[in-house]
């Protein structure tokens, strides 16, 4: 017993969905309460209890910088106390929030990702550790570990299971050539000469009716098992494996990044879609902020027109107008050219919306502009809860136009659980330098 086991049990309950709990499994929020807070979806199993009807109970909120007027709409999540019950956690503890750098590190580990941010500005060059390698040098700088590994790798590459080969040549009705080809197909790294010798030296040629029969009855031993059994007596060292270390020239770069976040705020972008954008963008912002020495963020909202906004407003805005995505790219180009020259800045242009656009705008305007605006990455995140809609073609059109281009990524988010995948997809795509 113990907590590890409780965690196992929770996984079983949560993933295998014990049938009586199915209806209570939901993906909840794990979110800080501040404006910069990140929300990470987590799985919760909530048992039923006597509770108030959420709609009937109402609640308390706290205005930021002023008390709102009665009649104004509010988001009930805004009061920052998501559990709704003080003291639910039982214990008393205080929290502090982590900084973006720590966050980026954790996310790298969680996603198995280690994005090395590209640098732009060369600041200085210094002598670093002895990590660079050349083929000649004084003995004291010989990289023996590497030398040994090369030898070992060669041994593994040329080693094969001799007893297996000696059985293969005893299959009835095949010649040494057949044996050699068959063995090679089985990835046995044997030479033709060895097979011929073995065939000639075999006690008989009728022990096995077929290769299949022989393979089923003879255990193949891997090279590693063999080395473990026999020990490592002979490593085929070669002179050309020798490498000598010399100091590396380290170029310290200042890494500047500008992230342009573009969001469709038109009438079709309802609450759910808006929320999915926020769930995707916020961790991305955090991540890039943690990875670069200097990160700046530009927020652009658009319907049929585009305008720049502050972060605080960005996720909250809703307008009624139609949609013309190219308006946002026009503004993006203007802002980037003016403030963030390509030779000094790493640029990420990330747009999100429900993929609805006015007709032909994508192919005629957006795609050419995406080609023209230089950036490390152009991304589009389609948030379409519950799958696709008929008019929603922007994402697809972009994807088709840029197929095979690793500077452009399109991700689809239709529910909370897609968020992590989308983040991974976006962060693991980057134009090769």
């Amino acid at each position, binding site marked *: *017993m113990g907590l590890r086991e409780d965690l196992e049990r929770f996984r079983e309950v949560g993933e295998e969905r014990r049938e009586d709990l199915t209806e209570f499994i939901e993906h909840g929020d794990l979110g800080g309460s501040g404006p910069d807070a990140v929300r990470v979806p987590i799985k919760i199993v909530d048992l039923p209890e006597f509770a108030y009807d959420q709609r009937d109970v109402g609640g308390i909120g706290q205005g930021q910088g002023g008390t709102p007027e009665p009649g104004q709409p509010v988001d009930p999540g805004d009061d920052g106390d998501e559990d709704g019950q003080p003291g639910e956690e039982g214990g008393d503890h205080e929290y502090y929030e982590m900084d973006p750098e720590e966050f980026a590190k954790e996310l790298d580990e969680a996603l198995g990702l280690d994005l090395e941010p590209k640098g732009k500005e060369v600041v200085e060059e210094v002598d670093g550790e002895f990590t660079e390698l050349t083929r000649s040098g004084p003995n004291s700088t010989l990289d023996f570990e590497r030398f040994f590994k090369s030898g070992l790798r060669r041994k593994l590459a040329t080693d094969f299971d001799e007893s297996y080969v000696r059985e293969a040549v005893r299959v009835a009705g095949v010649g040494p050539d057949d044996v050699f080809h068959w063995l090679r197909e089985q990835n046995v790294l044997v030479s033709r000469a060895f097979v011929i010798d073995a065939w000639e030296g075999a006690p008989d040629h009728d022990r096995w009716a077929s290769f299949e029969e022989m393979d089923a009855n003879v255990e193949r031993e891997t090279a590693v098992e063999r080395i473990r059994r026999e020990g490592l007596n002979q490593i085929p060292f070669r002179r050309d494996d020798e490498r000598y270390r010399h100091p590396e020239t380290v170029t310290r770069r200042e890494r500047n990044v500008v992230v342009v976040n573009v969001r469709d705020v038109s009438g079709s972008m309802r609450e759910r879609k808006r929320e999915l954008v926020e769930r995707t963008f916020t961790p991305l912002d955090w991540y890039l902020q943690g990875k670069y020495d200097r990160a700046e963020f530009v927020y652009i909202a658009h319907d049929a027109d585009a305008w720049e906004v502050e972060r605080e407003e960005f996720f909250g805005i809703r307008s009624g107008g139609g949609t013309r995505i190219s308006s946002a790219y026009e503004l993006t180009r203007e802002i980037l050219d003016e403030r963030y020259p390509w030779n000094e800045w790493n640029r990420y242009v990330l747009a999100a919306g429900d993929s609805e656009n006015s007709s032909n705008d994508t192919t005629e305007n957006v795609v050419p502009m995406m080609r023209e605006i230089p950036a490390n990455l152009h991304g589009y995140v389609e948030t379409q809860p519950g799958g696709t809609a008929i008019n929603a073609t922007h994402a697809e059109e972009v994807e088709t136009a840029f197929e095979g281009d690793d500077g452009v990524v399109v991700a689809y988010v239709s529910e909370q659980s897609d968020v992590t995948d989308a983040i991974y997809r976006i962060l693991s795509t980057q134009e090769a330098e």
Partner: protein
Amino acid sequence: MRDDRTAARRAAARLEEPVREAGRLARKLGLDPYRVNYWVVTNDEMNQLIAYDGFQSRFPHWRWGMKYDRQRKQSQFGLGKAFEIVNNDDPANAFLQESNSLADQKAVITHVEAHGDFFANNGWFGLFTDGDGQTGPSAGTQVDRDDDDRPRGPDAAALLERHAETVAGYMEDPEIGRETVERFIDTVSTLTDTIDQHSAYAEAVKTGEDIDPEDLRERLDAMDLSSDVRGQVFDEEWLEERAEAEAEARLDEPRRDVLAYLREHGMCYDEETDRAVEMADWQRETLEILRREAYYFAGQRVTKVMNEGWAAYWESLMMGEERFAGVDEFLTYADHQARVLGSPGLNPYKLGKELWEYVENTTNRREVIERLLRVEGVTWRNFHEAVDFDEAERLLEPHPTIAGAGPDVLGDLAEMAANGDPRVDPKGVDRAQSGTVDPEKYPWELLTYEGLAERHFSLAKPQYREFLQRVSRERLEETARYLFDDERYATIEEALADVDRGAGWDRMREVRESHNDVTFVDAFLTEEFVRDNHYFTYEFARSSGDYRVTSAEYEDVKKKLLLRFTNFGKPTVNVYDGNFDNRGELLLGHEYNGVTLDVEQAKGVLERAYKLWGRPVNLATIVKEYDEHDLEIARRRNREPTPRETGRRIRFDGEEFETHELDTQIEERISASEVDYDTKPEEWLA
């Protein structure tokens, strides 16, 4: 925790002195905490402890795994790490995050000492130990304590450990099995909030098949009243009538503790025989374990705001004003405090701390006013003209030697001590002079409680200077009304010299003994607080289909706040009948306060209650129904529709739900008439 890690050992060694001194300082300030054992733990250990509510061992259940998973992700994704967790135990155990800076650790230690005081002295925590919470093998064990006059607090770690062993034993029993036990725990967990958290914990026992109505006579016998009193107040005839009435109505008063009732009278449904059978011993015991833990944790759930506020208040006083944070640590501490108090939303640290400060200031002000109103010629009518507030402020300033107690004024302090000044601690001064105590680092050693109270008298602090002057005429008149001897002092100076500087702190300690969050907020939440923090209420608007701000009025905000704290912020559901309809059915009643139940969830609970009752279960509640036509009109006119409140009885018979009209008598019994938690304005503003 693993003691062998050098990092932890080193961190722990650095903390020995702060721990010892924080304990001394807390006691000097009038706090009376349980002894606290401190442990330094890694981040992962911290996450585990939080999952287990601050303990090292709990009964096996997937819920802890879920909490652990959440906690781990929370710290992994940078959504916050815990500084510490402390549990209510005697001695208490506090676990400190290894990665905390020394300034963080000091802050956390002062914070924890104040929690330790709250655990030991708040009556709502006492409910568990006053009751049967202490029964068990280790009850009454003597622990090494410096305060022998206090009855022993909870022995919680041992209790939870015993529970863990018992439950694990059932799970390992091949006749029962983990899955079965865990499902049973799930079932009971849906009802662990339906206890009587305002009463002392008493072990529930099986009382037999029939439900005996309580005969008051037995209880009176036990109370050992004199026969005179008994004869006069409760005559035999009345008692007889009452006993009969009770026998008839079965449960005259609804029973708040649903779990206890199920423990006493519950059965379980047996599929094979298609009838209710007795619960197995392991089921009864598991139910009681969960119930006992619910009572144990109830104390901290009903005092969250008070307790966190109390800790934040004393932490700030010790760290900031008494300079427990060294000069070089002060900025780090200020940042620490800002992070804790500054997180937005309904922050219990901030809300609680400000309410405590309000208690302190109003008590101190009352003390000062009572003195001033006794000055010749000062009355409540002319108070604002007759009192020179600049002079009063100056007179309330602490004595310079007391305010500046430290190495520079050791000589003066020694002299004051020699003259018997009650504000100076002669032993402390001695020790400072002989070099055993560093008066630079620990100046409070030189003063007594009285001296410290003067040094920190709230109305002399810059941020509260105006507080005295701002007193209203109503408050003055009210104070004056109960004053006699109102010409006692000739001058203001004379009057203020008599001010008891400890009045605020004394009152705070009284309040911390008896209040819980509901009474605390009710008594001390001010209009100012609501306004300054921009609190508002919101409700769901049927006309627009979303949530709208309804009010920023003090009364409305307070109402909603109280709703959130009352009964853990959950609806109250009691047992109304154990033999409903004379068919042995259970009748639960939702005490309707104007806010309806989440019916879907309630049905989920009924399904589980059925498993613990063995026979059909009923829930009486009131639902709000909206007429389609009214809704349509509401949408068009942008006005809120009026619901029709209708009584309903939801019945679950083990297979399906039925909804019936509610008997009007029961409906009357479950409806509260006076309460109204709705904050929608009369005329809906769009």
